[in-house]
C-alpha cells in the first residue's frame, strides 16, 4: 500500500461516506493499492460528471477514476484494468469536441491532470519534455522568456492539455504555416494497452524503424497513453504583421484566402468570421471589429522586409476582391485585441443562443465560398441559425449550429444539419475532420470517406497497438470494422446524443 499521510486521512473521510464499495470494490482496491487511495475515485457523482466532454455527446457512467502521477502508475492502472477485463480511457482537460473522452462501457478513466510538469527545456535540441497534463498555453507562457513557443494553438489553449493535443493531433489558427501537433511531437513515452512502456520516435531526426510516433499522434486514446512527450519548440518570429480586412460578402473573404495562397504567400494564419459572430464578438470584447458581412484576420510573420511586403500584397489581394476596409494592427496591444476577438468567439456565441454544436470539416480552399453557401442553406432548411468562424487558410470550416436545448425535437434537426454539412464538405473534395477528430461524433461517417479496405487497414494499425481492444473502445473506427470483442459498442448507445 502506498504511503498514507494527510491525503490518506482525507480519503478516509470520503470512505466514511461508503464510496469504494460496490461492484468495482476489488478493482478499486487494486488501483488504490497501486496509486494511493486518495487518487482513485469511485464516487458516483464524480463518475457521472465524466460522462461528458466539451462535445454534445454523453457517455455512460464511467468506472473508477484514477489520478496517476508517473509512468509506472499509468502502467499499473493499465495492467490492473486488463486483469479485470476493463477498458481504459485517458482524459485530459475534457475540452474535446468529438466525444473522444466520454466513457462507453464503464471504462477505468485515467485523468492526466496530476501529471502536469514541464520536465525539461533543451535549447540545443530545441525540444521541451512535458507530462501529458501540461496545459497548452502554460507551455508557451513558460517558453516565452526563452524566445520560443509551442506552435499548435487551439482555441481551447487556456484549458486543453498537451496530452489531449497529441491524442487529437490538434491544430489552431497558426497551423497554416507551422503545421499541426504531429509536426511538433518528436518523441513520446507511451504505456501500451498491454502494459508495455515504449519510447516512440526520438529527439534525433530518424530514430529508426517504423514512424510509430507518427502513427500514435491523433490516435484519440485508442493506441495507448502518452506519459512523457517531447515537443519541438518554435522560435518566436522577429517580425509580425496582423491585418483585419472587412468584406461585404463572405465570398470576398473566401476568395481572398484562396488568392493569397495562389500568389505564393503562406501567412502564419488566416481566419474568417461572418457577420453574426463578428457582432457577438464585438459586443463581448470590443476588439474593434467592423460591422461587415465577413472579416478576415490575417497574420504574416518572419523577417522584417518579407513580412512588410507580404502584408501589403495581402491587403492588395483583399481590395481586388472587394474589401471595404483594411486595417493593420499598429502595435502589439492592438494585435492582441484583434486576436482576443477571434479566440473568444465561441464564448461570445452565448449572446445569440444558449447552446451550439461546433462542427469541423476541411474543404479545398477554392471550394470555401460554395461550401459556405451550402452551409447557410442547410441552416435555413432546418430552421437553424448557423454562424461561421474558421481557419480559412487551411480550408478548415467551423460552422456553429446554434440552438436552445429546451426546444423539443431541436437536437434531431441539429444532428440532421450536421450530417448534411459533412456530406457537402466531402462532395466538395474535403475530409471529415481537420482538428477535432472522429471520436464518437464522426465514427459512423467514416465510411463516407473510406472504403471497407481502407477502414480495415486503419483497424490493423489500431490492432497492432491494442490487440485486445482495451484502449478507448468504440471510438474512431466504425463498429463493423472494429475489434470483434466489443459487441456491446456496435452502435452509438441510446441517449448518447444530448
Amino acid at each position, binding site marked *: 500500500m502506498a504511503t498514507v499521510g494527510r491525503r490518506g486521512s482525507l480519503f478516509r473521510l470520503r470512505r466514511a461516506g461508503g464510496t469504494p464499495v460496490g461492484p468495482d470494490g476489488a478493482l478499486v482496491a487494486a488501483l488504490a493499492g497501486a496509486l494511493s487511495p486518495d487518487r482513485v475515485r469511485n464516487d458516483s457523482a464524480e463518475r457521472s460528471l465524466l460522462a461528458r466532454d466539451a462535445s454534445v455527446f454523453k457517455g455512460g457512467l464511467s468506472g473508477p477514476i484514477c489520478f496517476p502521477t508517473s509512468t509506472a502508475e499509468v502502467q499499473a492502472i493499465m495492467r490492473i484494468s486488463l486483469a479485470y477485463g476493463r477498458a481504459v480511457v485517458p482524459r485530459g482537460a475534457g475540452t474535446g469536441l468529438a466525444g473522444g473522452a466520454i466513457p462507453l462501457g464503464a471504462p477505468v478513466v485515467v485523468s492526466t491532470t496530476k501529471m502536469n510538469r514541464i520536465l525539461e527545456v533543451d535549447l540545443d535540441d530545441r525540444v521541451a519534455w512535458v507530462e501529458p497534463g501540461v496545459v497548452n498555453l502554460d507551455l508557451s507562457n513558460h517558453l516565452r522568456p526563452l524566445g520560443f513557443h509551442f506552435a499548435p494553438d487551439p482555441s481551447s489553449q487556456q484549458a486543453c492539455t498537451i496530452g489531449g493535443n497529441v491524442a487529437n493531433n490538434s491544430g489552431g489558427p497558426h497551423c497554416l504555416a507551422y503545421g499541426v501537433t504531429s509536426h511538433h511531437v518528436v518523441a513520446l513515452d507511451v504505456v501500451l494497452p498491454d502494459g508495455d512502456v515504449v519510447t516512440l520516435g526520438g529527439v534525433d531526426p530518424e530514430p529508426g524503424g517504423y514512424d510509430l510516433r507518427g502513427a500514435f499522434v491523433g490516435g484519440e486514446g485508442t493506441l495507448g497513453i502518452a506519459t512523457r512527450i517531447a515537443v519541438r519548440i518554435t522560435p518566436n518570429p522577429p517580425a509580425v504583421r496582423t491585418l483585419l480586412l472587412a468584406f461585404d460578402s463572405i465570398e470576398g473573404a473566401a476568395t481572398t484566402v484562396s488568392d493569397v495562397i495562389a500568389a505564393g504567400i503562406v501567412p502564419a494564419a488566416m481566419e474568417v468570421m461572418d457577420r453574426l459572430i463578428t457582432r457577438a464578438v464585438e459586443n463581448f470584447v470590443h476588439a474593434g471589429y467592423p460591422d461587415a458581412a465577413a472579416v478576415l484576420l490575417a497574420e504574416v510573420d*518572419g523577417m522584417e522586409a518579407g513580412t512588410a511586403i507580404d502584408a501589403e500584397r495581402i491587403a492588395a489581394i483583399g481590395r481586388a476582391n472587394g474589401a471595404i476596409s483594411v486595417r493593420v494592427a499598429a502595435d502589439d496591444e492592438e494585435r492582441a485585441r484583434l486576436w482576443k476577438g477571434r479566440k473568444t468567439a465561441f464564448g461570445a456565441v452565448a449572446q445569440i443562443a444558449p447552446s451550439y454544436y461546433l462542427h469541423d470539416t476541411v474543404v479545398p480552399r477554392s471550394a470555401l465560398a460554395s461550401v459556405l453557401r451550402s452551409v447557410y442553406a442547410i441552416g435555413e432548411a432546418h430552421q437553424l441559425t448557423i454562424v461561421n468562424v474558421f481557419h480559412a487558410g487551411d480550408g478548415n470550416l467551423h460552422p456553429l449550429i446554434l440552438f436552445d436545448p429546451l426546444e423539443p425535437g431541436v437536437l434531431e434537426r441539429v444532428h440532421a444539419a450536421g450530417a448534411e454539412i459533412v456530406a457537402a464538405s466531402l462532395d466538395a473534395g474535403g475530409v471529415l475532420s481537420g482538428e477535432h477528430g472522429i471520436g464518437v461524433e464522426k465514427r459512423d461517417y467514416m465510411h463516407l470517406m473510406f472504403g471497407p479496405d481502407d477502414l480495415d487497414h486503419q483497424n490493423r494499425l489500431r490492432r497492432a497497438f491494442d490487440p485486445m481492444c482495451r484502449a478507448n473502445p468504440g471510438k474512431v473506427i466504425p463498429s463493423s470494422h472494429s475489434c470483434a470483442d466489443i459487441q456491446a459498442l456496435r452502435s452509438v448507445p441510446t441517449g448518447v446524443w444530448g
Partner: protein
Amino acid sequence: MTARAVAALDDFAAEVGTVGTVAVEGCRTRWSAGGPPEPGARLVRAPEGVLEHRPEEMTVRVRAGTAVAELHSALAEKGQRSALPERGGTVGGALAVGEDDLSVLGRGRVRDALLQVRYVSADGRVVTGGGPTVKNVSGFDLPRLFVGSLGTLGLIGEVILRTNPIPPASEWLSSPDADPFAVAASLHKPGAVLWDGVRTWVQLEGHADDVGAQARALETLGSWEPASGPPEVGPHRWSLRPGELRGVPDRIAGDWVASIGVGTVFASEAPPLRSLAGGLGRLAKRMKAEFDPTGRLNPGRHPGGGI
C-alpha cells in the same frame, strides 16, 4: 479520380498480385537501404506520372514511379516545390526511404509532406490512407506510418503531397572559419546550415531584402564567399540529437556533412545498426504482421537498418 488513374493503380495491384515475394524497384538510389531485397523476390515498378498540381491548394497528386526531378520541374512551373529530396530517385522510393532534403529547414520534412497514400496491400488490394487536404485528422495516420517503411507494409502507388512556394530569393554561402552553431542560432528560418568539421555552408531563403540583410549580418561571424549549392555528401545517414552534433568529429570517421539544427549527418561510413528491443520491437513486429502477415513485401528490408 479519373478512370485512367484508377486503371493505373489497378494494373499495379494486378502486377503485385497476391502470392510470392515482391520487391519494388525505382531508380535504385537507395537500393541497400535497410538491407538489400532477398534474392528471388519478383521485381515490380509503380506507375508514373504527375496527375494534378493545384498551387492554390498547395497539393500535388503524383504516381509513385515518377522521378523526383520530373515532379519538381512540374511544380517549379507554378513556383512551388516539395519536401522530397532533390537527390531522390522516384517519388515512391523517396517516401519509402524517408530521407529529407539537405535544405530540410526550409523545405520541411518528408514525414510532414505526405497527405494521402494509395498503396497496394499484401493481399493485392488498393488501399487509401489520409486525405486530399492540407489539414486532416480523419482516422489514423497511415501516411506517416508509410514514410520510411521501405515498402514493407504496402507498395506505394500514388500519393498526394503538400507543396510549398519557392521563396523569391535563395543564396548559398560558405565560410572556412564560422562557428556553424552560432550561425544557426543567429538565423531565422534558414534553408540549411551544413558543416563538414571545417567549412560551414548556409542557405538563406526569403525575400531578397531579408536575404541580403542576413548575409550582411553573417559577416560578424566569419568570412563568407558565395557557393553554388550544398557540398557533395555521402550516401549514409546518421541520426543524432541536434545538441550532439558538436561531437561528430570524434564520433564519425571518413567524410561527413552534418545538418545543424536537424541532427542528420551524411557520411561515407554507415552508422551502426540499431536494434528495436523490448516492447518497441514487439510493437513493430505486430505492425508488420498486421499489414503483411506472410512477409511477401520487400523481404530482406528492415526500416531503421542504415542507408
